[in-house]
């Protein structure tokens, strides 16, 4: 994270954002223990699709699956969709569920990609989703997606890290942290996610008005 490159101040924002993300990721992501990685095939075993390439068409809107095949099984995808909805429930009745926005497809794109940066997440996510269904079956005799919300919460509460996590749930906690990182990244990148978090940019304006009086007041600058 220290060598995020280059001068660009249009990009200092992005570069710094990457650093903050790095710090956040370091704080939030707990990578899988070695045994989990040992058990799983490397990502190249299933993807095999194209890389981004050195001269891709930039002003095209890509969707997951455009460049490389998605690799979650239907069962894993169902569990992933259900967990995104649990983590990021709509605030308003008119809002869509994350699963309706396709957040699980982004997670699938991520863990199916041929890139080294994402490869370490593949075993964490796929094994974690399998565990989620197995745990749901163990406790409630149903797959995770079929559980009632209190049942889902019972499992999530044990692994989400809000309270002390028992030793036997450490791997599951690693999975949950990383899954939440990806689910939130995907969700907050959608127009609904922008609105949700209070991002109102990416619209052309005649003037840059600077901070509002309310913002200045908030900071003691008014």
């Amino acid at each position, binding site marked *: 994270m220290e060598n995020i490159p280059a001068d660009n101040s249009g990009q200092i924002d992005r570069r710094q954002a990457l650093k903050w993300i790095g710090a956040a990721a370091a704080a939030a992501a707990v990578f899988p223990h070695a045994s989990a990685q040992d058990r799983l095939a490397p990502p190249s075993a299933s993807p095999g699709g194209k890389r981004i390439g050195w001269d891709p068409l930039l002003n095209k809107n890509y969707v997951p699956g455009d460049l490389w095949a998605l690799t979650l099984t239907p069962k894993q995808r169902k569990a992933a969709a259900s967990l995104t909805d649990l983590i990021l429930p709509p605030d308003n009745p008119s809002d869509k569920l994350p699963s309706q926005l396709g957040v699980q497809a982004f997670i699938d794109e991520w863990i199916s990609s041929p890139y080294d940066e994402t490869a370490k997440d593949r075993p964490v996510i796929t094994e974690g989703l399998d565990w989620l269904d197995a745990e749901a079956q163990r406790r409630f005799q149903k797959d995770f997606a079929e559980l009632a919300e209190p049942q889902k919460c019972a499992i999530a509460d044990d692994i989400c890290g809000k309270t002390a996590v028992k030793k036997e749930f450490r791997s599951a906690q690693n999975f949950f942290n990383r899954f939440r990182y990806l689910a939130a990244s995907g969700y907050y990148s959608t127009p609904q996610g922008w609105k*949700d978090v209070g991002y109102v940019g990416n619209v052309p304006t005649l003037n840059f008005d600077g901070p509002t009086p309310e913002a200045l007041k908030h900071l003691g600058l008014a």
Partner: protein
Amino acid sequence: MAIITEKDLQPNYDVIVVGSGAGGGQSAYTLTMNGVKVLMLEAGRNYDPVTETPMFQSKADAPLLGMGTREKPFGFHDATVDGGWEVPGEPYTQASTDPKQRFDWWRARMLGGRTNHWGRISLRNGPYDFKPYSRDGLGFDWPLSYEDVAPYYDKVEMLVGVYGSNEGLENTPDSPNGTLLPPPKARAGELYVKKHVAKFGIPVIPIHRAILSTRQDHVNFPARLHPNNPKAQKIIAKAMQERAACFWATDCGRGCSIKANYQSTTVHLPPALATGNLDILCNAHAREVTVGADGKANGVIYIDKVTGQERAVKGRAVILAASSGETARILLNSKSNRFPNGLANGSGLVGKYIMDTVGAGLGGSVPAFENLPVHNEEGAGTHVYIPWWLYKDASKLGFARGYHIEFGTGRRMPGLGTGGASPGYGKSYKEEVRQKYGAGIGFAGRGEMIPNEDSFCELDPTVKDKWGIPVLRFHWKWSEHETKQAAHMEATFAMMIEAIGGKTRTPQADGSKAIDTGGRIIHEVGGAIMGANAKKSVANQWNQCWEVPNLLLNDGSAFCSNADKNPTLTIMALAWRATDHLIEEMRKGNL
């Protein structure tokens, strides 16, 4: 004349310009506006920001939310294509396996070169910056002064359009009234920093960037740029009217389809093409400069990258603006009986004294920024910065020279990592994400490196690129001046984050660990330094090679120091000045 293919090449040109970025673009502009017939060779493909820029695409429209990858290191939507830290088939090598002696070389094989990827930060070197040796006995003085360059800074600022303000600070030059465009307002977090670091004597002022905050003065600027040249005035007036003012959205690093920011491809090349005096040949990778029996440059040999075949073009003069490293490489590869060690290399200094900028960074989270009332903070990237403020303390710092600080805050487009650090799930999790969104800050220092004997490039004795051309091998070493400066940056950033009530990690006291790898700031300059003495430099103050006066080095290669100010504006000013001189010499029949 236009963007051409090989079959349309003329048998002879007045000047061949190698490279289409800031130096090449400015050179071609100045030449063609004065009626000189120019061929520009670009190693990469044709590239048109007007049609190719992803302007309003969201991160979700890119694979992997636009994550930086090997092929697109600054993220999917970054303007650079066919470039980055590596270029397929075009390797470079390191002399040492020690990571601290590594030099990472950024290249952009595309029309417009590295002007497609930069911060548009356009700071003038100050009077001290041209006479560093005289001030502290380190490095080299330039064979010119600020006063020599100032009129060209004025012209470049008017031509490309630079926003900023005049603050009257030491070694931070003002521009003549009416030259700069008004700076955008500071953001909330920027004002907050300004208020809380004032007690340290640290100034936060509007930055200068090559972005049109308003449209250019197409009525008055043309005559100031091109006195007594009505044709040039007419062409540039029209070109200025074809550029829109910034609409305060979209990332400048993606390029700009409305031409509100400076890219060579939207600012220098269109008017140059409109003169009818410019041919641009893309996919033409220059290998060497050819020399006639009289010892003067008379053309360029290039590889047609489409066919892989070697071709030659002829010109009365040659301007290299291929990027410092590539220019040094072309000179070193231009071997002949008369110039057995490479062209213009009688001093043995071609490839020597390469420099980058000292870089270090520190980020933090700022509780005061949490729950900031929602408003649009996007704007145009950086709006303010901190110029070097400790000129008076030079003797107490333990390192020479100084640095400026760029920093970023604000409620920017969410993407990878948004919400990543908050615990739990459900409504309470989302509430915390909302609270913390936009509550970060990042500081980056950009400081002066002093040229040293251990930082240079040379031809690798064995490795060649896919066309069989010998590649560069880099040697690199930071001196204590740079590493101590990097440690000073970290300590300063931590102090400022504390002053705004923020949280960060412990600053890195070991500057050799804090400093970014050589080359990573992409301010590569030097390698063919200018000087007043032909034995101790490659070029004179007019970027002319001492040994080959009709060969100019109009990129950063002739820089003999690398002030903390980002080099692009100075590259353009010096290229304009050198090209004016070339035209004059050609008119006089001296070349």
